[in-house]
């Protein structure tokens, strides 16, 4: 039974439960609503929740467990001999699933009867042809063990889904019975519903946290794997980044310092551009600009935030780089070798960050109460004195937050770096030299035909982890600053 049907059935039970629960509660006091503990709709909602939530959770759990069990059982059916030398069990299992899907579509298209799909077949070519006719994908020739496994796979999934649907409906009915039995005037339905809402909110929060945790864990395992193959001291303190390409042998230097330096340098240039411009723009927009100017200028500025970073990358590569080269290159001051440089990427990234800083700061400055400005004007302060001494200090925690957010963006930015800063990992003070960042290197280490077990590929996870720790530290620092400031002035 498709999941959609199951869902609709449970929904119908919930709806019926709602109506019954509601009317039972009302009937229990002879229709006098004032004698009920909660509003009538709460009794209905209570039943609906008890129908829906357990059945839903059960279905989710079943759907998570079933593929694991089925895969394990079917995988055991395939003898070692059936796996070709250049293949693996995983690939064969993928084929099994494909054929199972192919049988499904063949049955659906009328290419074979359900019985035919279920019973063992000897004419494998015929089966292959029938599946292909139905639009199924068959990559290699179907072998007997694989077809058997596929049929078993179908059968197990079929019974599994059937049992799941039956149990889910039973659970829904049980929930309905439980909820309806409770529906009496003195049952505290309102509090129960309240508790469920809280559980829902907690669930949402935990999903967010668990996902983060999952991401970190997946990074950690690969990072540990990397450090098993490559000494941590060399990674953290190495000043040379020179990965040899995997497969070709040779040892790699995988020192993170040049990458961190590149990340840091480009971010600093970007922030040096974005923070003053963004902040001053925000001050102008919120304190000086007339309503009309503001209503035009603010959206225009925010358009900048909507431009995809790859477009900024092109802008860096095709416009800013050559422009800088003209001024600082051989024909000018002679500091710059090529268009790709820290300066190029930093400037363009700074432009990208302006709307982040300005838009957030503008909102924060606007949130400073007018009474504070009045107080300052009332003492004979000018507008700029008021802004500098009253408005900005009051808005500072938020502005620091905005700047750190921009810094996180700068550190995580990839496209602009790839196109604007070059690919050379280098420890240099000259901002007109090409450098690269952690993120850009993560991409280049994982793309291409890298072997995922080699240190050259695994280093990407170590780099990701390093970046994660750095941004985390940045955020914690931001929180700390904001808190400290708040305590002082609230």
């Amino acid at each position: 039974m498709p999941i959609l049907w199951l869902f609709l059935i449970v929904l119908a039970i919930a709806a019926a439960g709602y109506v019954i629960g509601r009317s039972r509660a009302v009937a229990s006091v002879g229709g006098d609503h004032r004698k009920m503990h909660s509003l009538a709709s709460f009794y209905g909602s209570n039943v609906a929740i008890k129908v829906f939530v357990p059945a839903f959770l059960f279905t989710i759990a079943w759907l998570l467990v079933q593929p694991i069990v089925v895969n394990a059982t079917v995988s055991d059916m395939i003898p070692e001999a059936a796996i070709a030398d250049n293949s693996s069990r995983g690939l064969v299992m993928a084929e099994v699933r494909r054929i199972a899907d192919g049988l499904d579509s063949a049955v659906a298209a009328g290419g074979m009867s359900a019985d035919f799909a279920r019973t063992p077949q000897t004419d494998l070519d015929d089966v292959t042809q029938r599946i292909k006719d139905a639009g199924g994908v068959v990559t290699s020739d179907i072998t007997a063990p694989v077809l058997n496994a596929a049929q078993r796979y179908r059968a197990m999934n079929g019974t599994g889904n059937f049992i799941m649907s039956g149990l889910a409906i039973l659970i829904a009915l049980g929930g309905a019975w439980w909820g309806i039995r409770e529906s009496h005037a003195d049952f505290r339905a309102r509090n129960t519903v309240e508790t469920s809402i809280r559980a829902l909110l907690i669930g949402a929060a935990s999903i967010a946290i668990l996902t983060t945790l999952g991401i970190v864990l997946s990074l950690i395992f690969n990072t540990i794997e990397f450090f098993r193959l490559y000494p941590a001291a060399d990674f953290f303190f190495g000043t040379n980044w020179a990965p040899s390409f995997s497969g070709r042998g040779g040892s790699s230097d995988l020192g993170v310092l040049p990458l961190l330096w590149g990340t840091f340098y480009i971010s600093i240039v970007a922030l040096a551009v974005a923070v003053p411009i963004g902040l001053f723009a925000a001050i102008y927009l919120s304190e000086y600009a007339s309503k009309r100017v503001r209503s035009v200028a603010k959206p225009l500025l925010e358009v900048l935030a909507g431009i995809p970073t790859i477009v900024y990358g092109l802008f860096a590569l095709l416009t800013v780089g050559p422009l800088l080269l003209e001024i600082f290159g051989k024909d000018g001051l002679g500091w710059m070798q090529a268009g790709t440089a820290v300066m190029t990427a930093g400037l363009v990234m700074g432009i990208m960050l302006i709307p982040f800083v300005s838009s957030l700061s503008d909102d924060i400055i606007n949130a400073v109460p007018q009474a504070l400005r009045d107080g300052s004007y009332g003492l004979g302060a000018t507008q700029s004195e008021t802004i500098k001494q009253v408005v900005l200090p009051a808005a500072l925690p938020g502005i620091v937050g905005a700047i750190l957010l921009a810094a996180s963006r700068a550190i995580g930015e990839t496209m602009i770096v790839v196109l604007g800063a070059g690919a050379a990992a280098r420890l240099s003070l000259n901002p007109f030299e090409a450098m690269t960042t952690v993120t850009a290197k993560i991409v280049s280490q994982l793309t291409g035909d890298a072997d995922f077990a080699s240190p050259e590929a695994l280093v990407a996870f170590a780099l990701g982890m390093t970046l994660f720790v750095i941004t985390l530290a940045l955020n914690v620092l931001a929180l700390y600053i904001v808190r400290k400031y708040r305590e002082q002035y609230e």
Partner: protein
Amino acid sequence: MMKDNADERIGVDAMDIKFAAKDVQVYYADNHAIKDVSVDILDKTVTAFIGPSGCGKSTFLRSLNRMNDTIPICRVEGDIRLDGQDINAPEVDPVQLRAKVGMVFQKPNPFPKSIYDNVAYGPRIHGLARGKAELDEIVEKSLRRAAIWDEVKDRLDAAGTGLSGGQQQRLCIARAVATEPEVLLMDEPCSALDPIATAQVEELIDELRQSYSVIIVTHSMQQAARVSQKTAFFHLGNLVEYGDTTDIFTNPRDTRTESYITGRIG
């Protein structure tokens, strides 16, 4: 008591006119909030503005130091002169004007700074103190005058926003007197204060009267009678009656004034 105040007022300087307002109109967009108000505010005198809520007391008060300039929809018409100078004339800098005409707002609005910095704000901006010692002196004197010194002298570095509502209001009074204005506009300065602090602020007002002109908006008839020598009664944007406080409270000429002070309209 009312009689005492009236007697005290009599002196040579006391009759000088500080503010002369003529045919003042104030509009908030289409809302005509102040209608044809003409009034002469005397120097070295406490003037009380009374009247029911929403009658325009704050609005009129704010037009005396051009605080209404900060409200985009607000328009002030008419002639307001401070010491004979039209305050709305183009050559008058509102910033200079507000340094001379200080203001305490209806709602306490301390800056998110330390208590010390709150009070030192005006003196610093206007360069009133030469050196730290002098500034310390101004801060202490102002806090004492606002009857809050004893409560905050040990925590001048603490945030002004961390004080109680009544303490915040007195801090704002200290902040306003620290700039040594010639006129002090006080919009319900005692509405958040207990009787003791109120008495202290009233004492301060009386002291300020020796050298400045004070205008106080109040909803308390007793307070108006206690501290002021002149009283102006506003009603629906009109200045209904203006005169000696004693006269207004003992024999009001207008029936609306009488109804208000006896508690029949409000």
